[in-house]
């Protein structure tokens, strides 16, 4: 792929998001669009560790909620502005990624996954009992007033999340096409052989966990201003863990575009289903689509398209 193309697409997406805020009047669409972009970030972040490196993380909700609660604390304590919340949320989740990575990356396969699931539960229990952020009943956050050129703060959040989606996709693109991505792919294919071929496996896995965790935290940081009521059950929702795993699987885990395709398709379907049928249907849709893909197109949509186009892996 040409070097300039991803940058062009990135600028295009941002401009489109900006133009949309001038043209679209229906406020629901910003809420829905925000969620879709949020899942682009989460699915892309998950894929850096799960897809490129082959370590399945069930703890997305933990990293996401840590970003959200970092932002909550910053709002309660200092009324910190959104960019500070995002950077801090990303940093704190990155540090969590480093810590959990150091403790658990010696575990392989399913043991690593169970450890990440446990991590999310431990964090949730901790937050439930932390009075400063409202404990189990949560805390209300007042959304700031709109600032120009955006007509409402939600429009601004929508644009910010679009920008974060673009940044995370570019990071994934860079990793995939650099020596880091090739090393991660070697680890995914055969970790022992990778180590014996000179790949510093532990260091690369830590890097993947840190970058992945960081973007999950970044995705969670605008959450308080988006929902305005931050409480543990929704911040640590199982939806995040399931969706951020299912979206790359459906889109395709070996390329940066796969999680984006999966996130857009699946979260759009969920938004449509929430409005037209019922909000309880979300996970059912994910489950059915995931089973169908695992059975019929294990390489995801991107893999399916590549196969149909008869490219080298035919």
């Amino acid at each position, binding site marked *: 792929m040409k070097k300039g193309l991803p940058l062009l697409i990135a600028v295009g997406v941002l401009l489109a998001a900006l133009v949309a805020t001038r043209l679209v009047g229906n406020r629901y669409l910003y809420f829905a669009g925000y969620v879709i972009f949020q899942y682009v970030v989460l699915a892309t972040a998950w894929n850096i560790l799960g897809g490129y490196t082959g370590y399945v993380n069930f703890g997305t909700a933990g990293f996401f909620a840590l970003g959200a609660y970092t932002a909550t604390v910053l709002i309660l304590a200092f009324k910190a502005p959104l960019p500070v919340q995002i950077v801090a949320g990303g940093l704190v989740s990155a540090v969590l990624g480093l810590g959990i990575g150091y403790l658990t990356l010696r575990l392989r396969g399913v043991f690593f996954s169970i450890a990440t699931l446990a991590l999310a539960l431990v964090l949730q229990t901790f937050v439930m009992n932390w009075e400063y952020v409202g404990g189990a009943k949560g805390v209300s956050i007042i959304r700031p007033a709109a600032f120009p050129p955006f007509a409402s703060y939600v429009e601004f959040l929508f644009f910010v999340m679009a920008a974060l989606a673009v940044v995370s996709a570019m990071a994934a693109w860079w990793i995939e096409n650099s020596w880091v991505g090739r090393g991660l792919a*070697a680890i995914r294919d055969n970790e022992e052989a*990778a180590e*014996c*071929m000179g790949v510093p496996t*532990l260091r690369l896995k830590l890097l993947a966990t840190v970058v992945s965790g960081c973007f999950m935290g970044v995705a969670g940081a605008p959450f308080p201003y988006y929902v305005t009521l931050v409480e543990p059950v929704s911040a640590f929702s199982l939806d995040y863990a399931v969706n951020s795993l299912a979206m790359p699987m459906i889109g395709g885990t070996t390329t940066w575009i796969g999680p984006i395709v999966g996130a857009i398709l699946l979260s759009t379907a969920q938004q449509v289903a929430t409005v037209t049928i019922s909000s309880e249907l979300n996970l059912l849709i994910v489950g059915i689509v995931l089973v169908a893909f695992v059975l019929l197109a294990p390489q995801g949509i991107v893999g399916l398209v590549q196969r149909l186009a008869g490219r*080298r892996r035919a």
Partner: protein
Amino acid sequence: MAASLLEVRDVTKRFGGFRALNGVSLDVREGERFGLIGPNGSGKTTLINCISGALRNESGRISFRGCDVTRLPAHQRTRLGIARSFQIPKPFTSMTVLENLCIPLEYAARDVARADVVDEAMAILRRMSLEDKASLLPGRLTQVDMRRLELARAMAAKPRLLISDEAMAGLSSAEVDALLPILFALNEQGITIIMIEHIMRAVMRFSERIAVLDAGEKIAEGPPDEIVKNKDVERAYLGE
């Protein structure tokens, strides 16, 4: 006599209560063709796992080119110049044959410029007669080509010491005859080779010196013609 490239001193490795290696010592000289044989379960693969860094030995010392590497992780030993092939081939399955070689060229071979990686990989494939399979996935290779890929990938790490762990197991004698000259040619370029092999015809023809392991201990060491006459070796293989 050439200097020692690899020194193994009193290496012991336990798995729980089982002593897989018990005080094994070896010296491999620069440029040598060294054979390592022994019955199944005698500790050959454990020993090279300790040498390559896949396993840590509990006691004893391993030095390579005069540096103590006992505590170094495997990838750093590979960068110093110890490369190995695996008994059961472990290719990078999602990558083409060519891309498989690019990993060690990029990560381990320090003297190869990034721009030359693909050319260098093709040159190694040509030497291994794999050049027309460069764009295939490893899953589509025959057994003998898979073994060639294992050796080619180890070569791409630009080693001074190549450890070939049963590269010929399961191959026909014609295929063995096709692989042996490749190993001889590598040795002529100055690469020291440790060959672990069950195929006696190959290891006897190839090695200048052979060490025999039995139940985790070295029971004999010497040139091939002495090893075949050694009573302890006969007993280890055939029993009393």
